[in-house]
């Protein structure tokens, strides 16, 4: 038998039909749904008289729009259009009989945090959602990627997706990470190395000692941003850490089914002689704590560097870099560590899990913020509850952070959590696009520990100096 990658194996196990021209129907094991990209899909079903083929494999949770303030049970905290969208999801979940975690449920949170937390996401599965950060679930050795609303409707109606196979890309992070360097620094550094289109047309498998050493939370952070590198999906082969995370989760298999699942999961790895269409290798020890300076996630530099000049780049990037510098209000040659910050945002599907909150709290313990405002938005109600139990919430509150309820919040600013024009934010989220966190808002992406360090000093800061 010819050698296969992990992606090849999952693909083969889900191929429901292949046409003569190579167009495939891939069977979908888990379909995650949120309020922003699904209303038109459900409406499409109604208009054509179609139903949801596999409601037991379809899981919905509102996250993008929901307020994160403590008074959100009051409907007046939501704008009318947001409320209509959330109510539409309430109704669609009920009408079509799909699993649902409403805003009032303690298990509610960001869809990519809820899925793994509830044991919906398991190794070897195909997972899709009308959201590009579905790549997160690849951390479990699942083939997971974002889809558009027409494809949401297609999956609802047929439980399949029309696909052509992607190419295989290996990203290897060898050796150990240095102190102060985290999963976020890995994933940003990979994008810095490949560019935002470096992964286009590929499924990336992350491997190597530094990846194996990461917790499941850290692996989710790495896979989450595969899309920022242009890849269809990011994936990490399951191992003991994966099984341990899944065991006992509400929707994970139990008893004999768990044993049967484990038997298959243990075959889920890329064969030694598998063929890769592209290979990137970074040394773990070479990765520094990084921040973004521009308006593309590829605009990554170590915190010890200076703001670049547009003339440092080539081709179309020269104009793009100048546009970024103008938008970000930065001058070439300025040390990044001299850039003053107004706001700190800790949260999102990239860094809203318990380990992220622990990392930030470890830096913040006993300190006060030196920024205008700072907020922590836990990724789910359960992450929030655990952080309260561990005493992390008190550390954040004593430092001057707002301690919010779960949701996507300021990552994409669809709810009231937004930056004002010119407001500069240290953010643990995934995109620094123009206007992403609010019109005119300026976003610097970084790890939770780095964001906490920036909160204390009021400027971009090398977290290693505070450790």
């Amino acid at each position, binding site marked *: 038998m010819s050698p296969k990658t992990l992606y090849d194996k999952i693909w083969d196990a889900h*191929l*429901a*039909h292949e*046409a003569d*021209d190579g*167009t495939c*129907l891939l*069977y979908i094991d888990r379909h995650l749904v949120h309020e*922003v*990209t699904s209303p*038109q899909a459900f*409406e499409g079903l109604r208009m054509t008289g179609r139903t949801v083929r596999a409601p037991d*494999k379809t899981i919905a949770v509102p996250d993008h*729009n929901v307020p994160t303030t403590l008074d959100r049970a009051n409907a007046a905290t939501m704008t009318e*259009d947001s409320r*209509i*969208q959330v109510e539409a999801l309430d109704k669609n979940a009920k009408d079509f009989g799909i699993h649902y975690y409403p805003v009032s449920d303690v298990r509610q949170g960001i869809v990519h945090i809820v899925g793994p937390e509830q044991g919906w996401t*398991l190794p*070897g599965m195909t997972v899709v959602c*009308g*959201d*590009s950060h579905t790549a997160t679930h690849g951390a479990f050795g699942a083939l997971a*990627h*974002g*889809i*558009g*609303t*027409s*494809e949401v409707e*297609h999956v609802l*109606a*047929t*439980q*399949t997706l029309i696909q*052509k196979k992607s190419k295989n890309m290996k990203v290897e992070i060898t050796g150990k990470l240095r102190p102060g360097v985290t999963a976020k620094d890995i994933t940003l550094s990979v994008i810095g190395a490949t560019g*935002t*289109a470096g992964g*286009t047309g590929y499924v990336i498998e992350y491997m190597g000692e530094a990846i194996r050493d990461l917790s499941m939370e850290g692996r989710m952070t790495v896979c989450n941003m595969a899309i920022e590198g*242009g890849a*269809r999906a990011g994936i990490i082969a399951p191992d003991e850490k994966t099984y341990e995370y899944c065991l006992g989760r509400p929707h994970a*298999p139990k008893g004999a*089914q768990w044993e*049967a*699942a484990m038997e298959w999961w243990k075959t889920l790895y890329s064969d030694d002689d598998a063929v890769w269409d592209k290979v990137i290798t970074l040394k773990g020890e070479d990765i520094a704590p990084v921040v973004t300076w521009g308006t*593309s996630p590829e605009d990554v530099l170590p915190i010890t560097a200076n703001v670049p000049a547009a003339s440092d780049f080539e081709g*179309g*990037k020269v*104009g*793009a870099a100048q*546009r970024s510098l103008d938008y970000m209000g930065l001058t070439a040659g300025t040390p990044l560590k001299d850039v003053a910050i107004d706001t700190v945002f800790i949260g999102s599907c990239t860094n809203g899990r318990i380990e992220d909150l622990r990392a930030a709290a470890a830096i913040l313990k006993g300190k006060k913020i030196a920024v205008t405002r700072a907020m922590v938005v836990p990724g789910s109600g359960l992450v929030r509850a655990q952080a309260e139990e561990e005493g992390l919430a008190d550390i954040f509150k004593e430092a001057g952070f707002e301690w919010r309820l779960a949701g996507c919040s300021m990552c*994409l*600013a*669809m709810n009231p959590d937004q930056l004002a*024009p010119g407001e500069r934010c240290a953010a643990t989220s995934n*995109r620094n*696009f*123009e*206007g*992403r966190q609010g*019109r005119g808002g300026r976003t610097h992406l970084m790890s939770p520990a780095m964001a906490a360090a920036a909160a204390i000093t009021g400027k971009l800061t090398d977290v290693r100096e505070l450790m």
Partner: protein
Amino acid sequence: MNKFTTLTGIAAPMPLINIDTDMIIPKQFLKTIKRSGLGVNLFDEMRYDDDRNEIPDFVLNKPQYREAQILVAGDNFGCGSSREHAPWAIADFGITCVIAPSYADIFYNNCFKNGILPIALPQEQIDVLMKDAEKGANARMTVDLEAQTVTTSDGDVFSFEVDAFKKHCLMNGLDDIGLTMEKAASIDAFESQASQSRPWV
């Protein structure tokens, strides 16, 4: 879905790389439960100032490009969020063809579901098309999906690649859910086999 066969129209030049879906349609316009009406907010933050006045320098506000049906842009067009609101806004504005060196994967697929043809061509050819687009309203390009060609106002012809199935669906305005449902027997068979081999799913 609207069919796409041939198109002769004005092409608007946007020589910017990494045009992301947040630029194409900012998040405040995602709070809709409809697919229509987003054209007025296409490129909203580049197109209007804080008081909702048009910014005259933005390409689609210029008199010669207000009726543009084709967009010529830089590398990695449509990167970022999976929001299908991006192609909905583009189509609602009246643009049904985008020409760029490369596209982000999800955006590229979303276009075909909405009667939009995304054409990928090498940078050197994009450079020629960009210059042609910069000539304004008198320079009309022609796109022929059947022949898989783009013809400039000067008569230069460039051939492009497109997946045969996607081309077939776009040329005939086909609903691919309907096509997939014709294969229900294969899906049933797969499901029953998978429920044996992976019952925990």
